[in-house]
């Protein structure tokens, strides 16, 4: 059975996470169970350690990123945001996305324009992330949390594409 990631890392099950504490708890556990602690021992001990460490790594990576944490929390509440029924995207966000993609395509060789686009996208992303705590607070507004998390998933994909273009340019 996969353990609840929050329980595993001894953190309260909530969207707002104390990132410093997350790091501390993660490293404290790693120091005890990492395969390096069992390198000279027998295979069974090594295997147990690899299994558990992989789980702790997964938990840590998920809780570290706001977007993945939101997605995971929704999953715990019984919502799979990748389901068909949530696929409708608000008109304004759709337009915004198309605008960004067009800008990326037109400026794929222009470093300054790409950097400007990257910072614009990043600002929009952070604005959306900042809305999540209120939506999640006492499960205040989960439908909007779902909508926002989906949008953030799209934004992260665009961010990656802009980044890739920036690496190719210059």
């Amino acid at each position: 059975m996969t353990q609840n990631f929050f329980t595993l890392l001894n953190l309260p099950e909530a969207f707002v996470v104390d990132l410093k504490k997350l790091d501390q708890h993660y490293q404290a556990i790693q120091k005890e169970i990492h395969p390096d602690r069992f390198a000279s021992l027998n295979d069974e001990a090594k295997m147990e350690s690899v299994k558990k460490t992989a789980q702790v790594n997964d938990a840590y990576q998920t809780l570290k990123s706001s977007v993945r944490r939101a997605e995971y929390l929704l999953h715990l509440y019984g919502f799979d945001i990748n389901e068909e029924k949530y696929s409708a995207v608000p008109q304004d966000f759709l337009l915004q996305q198309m605008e960004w993609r067009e800008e990326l395509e037109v400026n794929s060789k222009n470093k300054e324009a790409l950097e400007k686009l990257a910072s614009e996208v990043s600002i929009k992303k952070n604005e959306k992330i900042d809305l999540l705590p209120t939506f999640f607070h006492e499960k205040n507004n989960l439908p909007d949390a779902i909508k926002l998390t989906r949008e953030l998933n799209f934004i992260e994909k665009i961010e990656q594409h802009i980044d890739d273009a920036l690496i190719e340019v210059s």
Partner: protein
Amino acid sequence: MALLQIAEPGQSTLPHQHKLSIGIDLGTTNSLVATVQSGLPTILKDKDDHVLIPSVVHYGKNITHVGHDALPFLLTDAKNTIVSVKRFMGQSLNHIQYKDALPYEFDETSQDIQLKTEQGIKHPIEVSADILKKLKTMAEVSLCGEVTAAVITVPAYFDDTQRQATKDAAKLAGLNVLRLINEPTAAAVAYGLDQKKEGTFIIYDLGGGTFDISILKLHQGVFEVLATNGHPHLGGDDFDQAIAEMIKKTCSLNQLNHEDKRSLIMEAKKIKESLSTHPDVTAKFTLSNGKDIVFTLNRDTFILETNDLVQKTIQPIKRALSDAKLPITSIDGVVMVGGATRMPHIQSEIKTFFKQEPLNNLNPDEVVALGASRQAHTLAGNKSDQDLLLLDVTPLSLGIETMGGLVEKIIHRNSTIPVAKAQEFTTFKDGQTAMSIHVLQGERERVSDCRSLANFTLTDIPPMVAGSAKIRVAFQIDADGLLSVSARELSTNKETSVTVKPSYGLSEEQMIHMLTQSFENAEEDKKIRALSEAKIEGEQIITAVQNALHKDGKHLLTQDEIKDIQNAIYTLSSSLKESDADLIIGLTKNLNALTESFASKLMDQSVGNALKGKSIDKVNL
């Protein structure tokens, strides 16, 4: 089992016994061995005081020379003298660059790289094993004792096949590998501990044949790799090759024999090294047909001609920074590793790129082996550096082939290892009992652009209506960066068998064949050794289980479980008085199996212990 250690970190089961462990930097051009002596990592020297052991093997009629002993044959017997074999590890024949410039005879009938030598066909894994054997013996002579375990370094950008090949070579050499660690990580360990540094560092590691970039966060003994990137076939050798091509062109040389090809590369290397300290260099040498060659090269031309090679290292740096989500300004230092970083134009390029002076305060040839020896020392169970923790990542994404020749990524590059991910599959025909899965490594979208790792066939799927079987395939990358796969049919909870057919590398049969060959003359030794190893392992496990039972048995196990375990301990300990290795191994396995769930409970308990006292604070929402 021996899981009790997790409750008492640093306490080895046999504290009185100091274990000889070594760190090996198995390099393209040179290899090094280091060990921790009185708490300090030290590079070991051979009988002639050499520190760098050339990664060169000569296969003579009845004799194999390795290292310095093989050097005299470089020019006199080029075909049988293998250099830079690391570049062949885990590769297929059509992956080799400059194949025609190499003085070897390849077996062209095989997709695998097979070198025809005086001693018959040699696989790169066997050549590497011969280098490792030499290093092991050298360490044993120097340390006056048997080396029990080793850490071997590999380029961070090595894929699964190349790592597996390295591990196979160690097995052939009779080395117990505690861990494969990434070269830049090993360098960071040596650097961080030596200079007592904290912060975010980039390791720029340009060796003889490989290029790695790793970004690490160093904080209170934790070395966390944030991202890694690199180029699997880029190193000092390519700069030599570029100069050799210039000589060929300038002096209109074609149709060279094996020895001339070799001397051209050796001269090129000398020119490259001189250019690091001289503005221009003239080489004079004679070809085997008596033709005299005079060739002059100045540094500016060299820089111009090899600029594309230097630029090839910049792209991976940008990718690593992007993956780590770090701006260039957040880098506290750039550590230069590998002999090729001595070239002045590399130093200046890196200085310009990072806008800071690169760090060269440790010997770029030795730093990897020194770091590896530290890690070997800790992993072997010696008490020291207990707070040292390396968190490394997998360099390449792992995926499976889906419809239309595309790759679906399952584990993303730069995931912290160990990592495990599962994927569910279903059958598309009624009564289907088998299924093929193609595993690939790489970042590209198309199957043909990625590295094929293996084809798995899942068999024994219970026959069902199409789409109703649910097969969960779990992919796991362990702390060595090596992949393993398991599968289970969910509706019947039946384990499906996985047949692994590696796309490259050695099959199980080839491995066994090579192993038996290398032990042919030592059959008796092998038996004695197997028995003593079995006894040691048996004793260790008994002590470990007894301690664990004593400490945690009562609250984690039932009366019956304890009784069964005690019985197994009794039969195993009686067998230790006999000389039947197979029996001891069997009974050890039996005890291991019996304590498996106990091990898992102890692991959970130690997660709890790790966080004891760290109470959940109220978080204001």
